[in-house]
Every structure is written in C-alpha cells, then in structure tokens.
C-alpha cells in the first residue's frame, strides 16, 4: 500500500525540515529524521501510487510512474534516451532492484579526486548493512530466469567473472516476489513517525529569506488544474534526483558546481537469439552481471518482454517481425560503460530542463569494446544471431563477425540509453569541483542539503541505488548528530 498522503494542502504551511523528492535519497532522509522526532514534511511531484497499482515494466507503469512517460532524452551526438521515476518513491518504484555497495576502489577515487572524507569502505559498512536489512537485500530463492543464466554460462565458458546480483525483494511462502521499494519500506515508516507527505506537488523555486527557506510549488488539483502552494522550512533537503535537483537549484540561483557534471552509465544493447527457449511471459528481472571488466564495462541482461525486444530491434527493422515471432528464443542484453559528461540547464518559460550529454571518441571506443565483449559472451552462451543497437551493424552470427565491430562506434549510427544518472552536484571537500561538502551541505547556503544521486562524485560503475541510500543514511545521521 502507498503510505497515506497528507489530506490538507499545507498552503502557507511548512515544517522544521522539508524534504523535496521521495525517491531513495529523500525517503531514507525523511524516515530517519522523522524517527528521530524531527518535524518533517516530504514534498513529491509525482502521484501517490502503491507498488501494485501498475504492472511492472508495462506501458501503464511508464505512463503513470515515469517522468514524461519514460520518453526523456539527453541531447548530444549521439543523444541518449534516459528514464527517471516520477511518483511517490521515485525510481525505486519502477526499477529492477539490483543491489550493489559502492565498490571500495570507487570510494578511494572519490577521496583522492574530490576530497571526500569519512567515506571509506569501513565508514560506510554500517549504512549499507542497515539498508540491506531494511530492504531485505537477498539472492533469489529459486533459479534465475533462463535469459540471465545464459549470460552467466557464456561468461563461465570464457572464464570471466559473473555474479548473481542480490536484490531488494521479499518472497512469500509460495515464492511470490515483492519489490521493497520506498512505498513498501521507508515511506510508511516515515509516516508512522509523523512525517507528512504531500504528493503531486512540484517545487518550482526556492528562496532563502530571514534565515529560512520558502519553497514555491505548483500543486495538481483534483480537476486536473494546478494551484500555487508555498512551504516554509528551517532546513531544506533537496532529493529530486540527479536531473531535477540541479534544475531546481539553478532555477533558484544556486549554481556553484551545480548541474555541470551530470554523469550516466551510457548503455548499448544487443538482442540475442538462441536455439533454445530463454524467455517467457512475465519472465522476472534477470540477475546476472559479468564483472570481468568492471568498473569500466559491465555486462548484463535487461527486461526482455516483447515490447522491449521490439524497441531494441529498431536498428534492424528487416528482422523485427522474425525476431518477435520467435520471441521466446530471444532476450535483450546490455553493455554499460562509464564515459561522457553532461549538463542540466533550466530553460526560461519551460518546466523541463535541457539535458545535454557528450561522449568523446574514447568513450565511443569503450562502448565498442563493451559491445564486442558482450557479443563474445553471448556467442559463447550459444546465441546464434545477435542484433546490436547500431544501425548497419550485424547481425552477428559467429566469432568472425566480431571483426565487423569497429574500434569506436559511430555516433550517428549508435542508439544508447541509460537508467542511471548521478554526479550533477558532487560532494567532497575540494571546493573547486564539488557542490556540497562531504555530507551533502550545499556550500554558502546554510541549512540547504542535497541527499540523492546528484552527490555521488562520479559514476560508481554499479547499479547506484545502494550507494544513494547509504550516503543518504550517513548524511541524515550526521545532520541529527550535529556533525556534517
């Protein structure tokens, strides 16, 4: 069940602490502050929907729980399609639940390159452990989906490291799985502890006046219209996600190192066809990932229901009908990289920010290497035809065909996507390149904090929600203890 939303509009209301955005960063923060007895108001742009209100990975879910119905793009050459949740619970309501801790070598890099302090593997361990307990992070109780096992067997065949990634799911006695999203975990706890939630309310701009924040919002009304609302807070935590947080802050005149270093995990896909059945209606989330080339390149298996297969076949229209007729033998796989950088710019008049992203020749080279590795792995797994999301490339049917993959993919012919955005307001002590201190406090704006994927210093190279939650927890506790 979605936690009950506040029934009053709180027009001219407020709280000691207002949290903007109820994704993993905002939900963890609001919950911990409320449980510590703080007066907390959580403002969320999207609707309050329960986990079961939409079918996972369906068009209905995209329409109701994603920003812009799931059709968002970072402009560049090539442009990158990206997706964000926009509902109570944010991305946690729509994602695959694949969990990783931040790799220790990534934390080391954040320390040396950004001056991030008190964030070693040991410092973060208690926060990861707490989140893992709260979300029941665990391995599958039964066998993984066949398409996932194929990838694993290909990697094993090549002697590459491949793991089953744990997920935040609970399983009932019958083996039925339930994703432990924010509306299932931290948000009901927050409400129980007194946190008030105001959904369908978008923060447009924030102003600091007389030692407190005024948050100017647009609120959806029952008749489909909008009205203005304003909230006041002593402490303001912004957790609107890696794209919307910098958009809001920049729109509010807060710009230092904000929104200029957006990072993604640029991802290329391949549709693989196998002689045997690897896919079925309602096939769950594939859980295996190949870690042999981590963190630079990660390989995995994606949601592979027929509509997703069709979308991944867009660069091979002549084979689309044939592949879809045989869809139980086909699945979508991906190679995920780290490269490129982008920016978020609010536009005058428009509500949606302009997102731009650039990839260098080297980044296109990494994508080509990732694609080659992925194809090698799938061929080793027994695939007989591979269709990469590159116009004019493939199909690939044997080892010799791998030579068709150029050393760097052509930007004009390559289709990329991502579901991982971060680093648009990096944290650390190096004031020249970070937006906040090591605990998410925005420089020169007392009382303002960021608690979402924006503060991750650079791409973690793994699915990011575990990192977002652990840092949100660490920073919320520091706030409560009067440390950071």
């Amino acid at each position, binding site marked *: 069940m979605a936690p009950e939303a506040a029934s009053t509009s709180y027009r001219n209301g407020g709280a000691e602490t207002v949290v903007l955005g109820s994704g993993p960063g905002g939900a963890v923060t609001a919950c911990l502050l409320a449980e510590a007895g703080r007066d907390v108001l959580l403002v969320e742009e999207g609707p309050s929907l329960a986990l079961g209100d939409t079918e996972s990975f*369906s068009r209905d879910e995209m329409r109701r729980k994603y920003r812009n119905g799931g*059709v968002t793009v970072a402009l560049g050459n090539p442009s990158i399609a990206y997706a964000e949740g926009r509902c109570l619970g944010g991305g946690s309501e729509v994602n695959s639940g694949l969990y990783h801790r931040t790799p220790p070598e990534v934390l080391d890099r954040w320390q040396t390159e950004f001056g991030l302090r008190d964030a070693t593997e040991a410092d973060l361990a208690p926060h990861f452990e707490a989140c893992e307990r709260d979300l029941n992070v665990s391995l599958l109780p039964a066998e993984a989906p066949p398409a996932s096992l194929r990838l694993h067997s290909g990697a094993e065949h090549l002697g590459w490291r491949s793991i089953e990634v744990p997920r935040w799911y609970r399983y009932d006695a019958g083996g039925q799985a339930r994703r432990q999203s924010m509306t299932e975990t931290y948000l009901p706890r927050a409400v129980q502890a007194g946190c008030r939630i105001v959904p369908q309310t978008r923060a447009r701009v924030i102003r600091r006046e007389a030692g407190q924040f005024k948050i100017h919002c647009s609120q959806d009304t029952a008749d489909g219209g909008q009205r203005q609302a304003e909230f006041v807070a002593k402490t303001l935590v912004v957790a609107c996600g890696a794209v919307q947080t910098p958009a809001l802050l920049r729109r509010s005149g807060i710009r230092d190192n904000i929104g200029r270093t957006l990072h993604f995990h640029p991802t290329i896909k391949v549709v693989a066809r196998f002689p045997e059945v690897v896919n079925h*209606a309602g096939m769950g989330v594939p859980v295996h990932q190949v870690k042999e080339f981590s963190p630079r390149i990660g390989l995995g298996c994606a949601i592979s229901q027929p*509509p997703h297969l*069709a979308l991944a076949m*867009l660069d091979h*229209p002549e084979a689309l009908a044939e592949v879809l*007729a045989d869809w139980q033998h086909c699945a979508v796989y991906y190679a995920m990289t780290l490269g490129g950088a982008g920016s978020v710019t609010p536009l005058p008049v428009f509500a*949606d920010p302009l997102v731009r992203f650039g990839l260098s020749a080297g980044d296109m080279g990494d994508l080509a290497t990732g694609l080659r590795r992925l194809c090698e792995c799938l061929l080793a797994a027994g695939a007989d035809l591979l269709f990469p999301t590159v116009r004019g490339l493939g199909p690939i049917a044997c080892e010799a065909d791998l030579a068709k993959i150029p050393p760097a993919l052509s930007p004009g012919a390559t289709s990329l996507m991502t579901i991982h955005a971060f680093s648009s307001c990096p944290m650390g002590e190096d004031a020249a390149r970070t937006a906040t201190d090591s605990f998410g406090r925005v420089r020169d704006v007392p009382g303002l904090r960021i608690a979402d994927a924006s503060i991750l210093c650079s791409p973690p190279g793994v699915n990011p929600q575990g990192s977002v939650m652990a840092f949100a927890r660490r920073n919320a506790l520091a706030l409560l203890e009067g440390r950071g």
Partner: protein
Amino acid sequence: MTPSFSAAVFALTYSIVRERCAGAEEGSTRLLNRVATYILGCHSRLPDFMRVPLRLATIGLDGSTLLTTGRPLHLLSHEERWRRIERWRASRFSPLRNVLRFYEGLAVFGWYGEVHEDGA
C-alpha cells in the same frame, strides 16, 4: 486536405506497424487506433520544450507531400506513404531521421505492447 497533427500520427502509425510488425494486417484497425492514441498520449507527456517542435515537424511532414501529390501524407495510399517514410528514414538530415525514429520506436513498442501486454 489540410495537414493535421493527429491525422499524421495515425497515418504514420498505420504505415510503420503494417510494414514492420507481424499480425498487423487488415482488420487490426482497433489495435492500430489504440497504438496511435498511445503515441498521441506519449507526445503530450514529452518534455515541454520538445512538444511544439515535434508537433510542427510532424505537421510539416504531413504537408510536405501537398506540392507533389496535392494531398497531405495522411491521405496518401499506404504504398505511397511508405515510400516517403523510407526516404525520410534514410535522410542525411539527422533531425528528420530522429522524428521518424521517435514514431517508429513508439509504434513498435506500442504494437507489441497491445498484442502481448493486453493479450489482445
């Protein structure tokens, strides 16, 4: 006889799905209409700064056949329409290719969604 955004979206949907997707023969009008309606819904949810340019580009495509055929794209036969779509898809002008890709992506995603998600 005048170019129309929604008529153009319906026409593009019909052509793309009929040409690309299995099972979209005559008689699938109800499903095709649902896919086109789905695409119109997606357009209405696009980032606000993209909505108007895409709408204008679509109306432009619809009107672009007026000069040579006297009819907007949506009133051409499927064969004539598809010839033009193929030409635009292969254009060297990337914004034009992107517009076509937007419709192609949503049309195939929408079609297989209708067929498989809804068990129609």
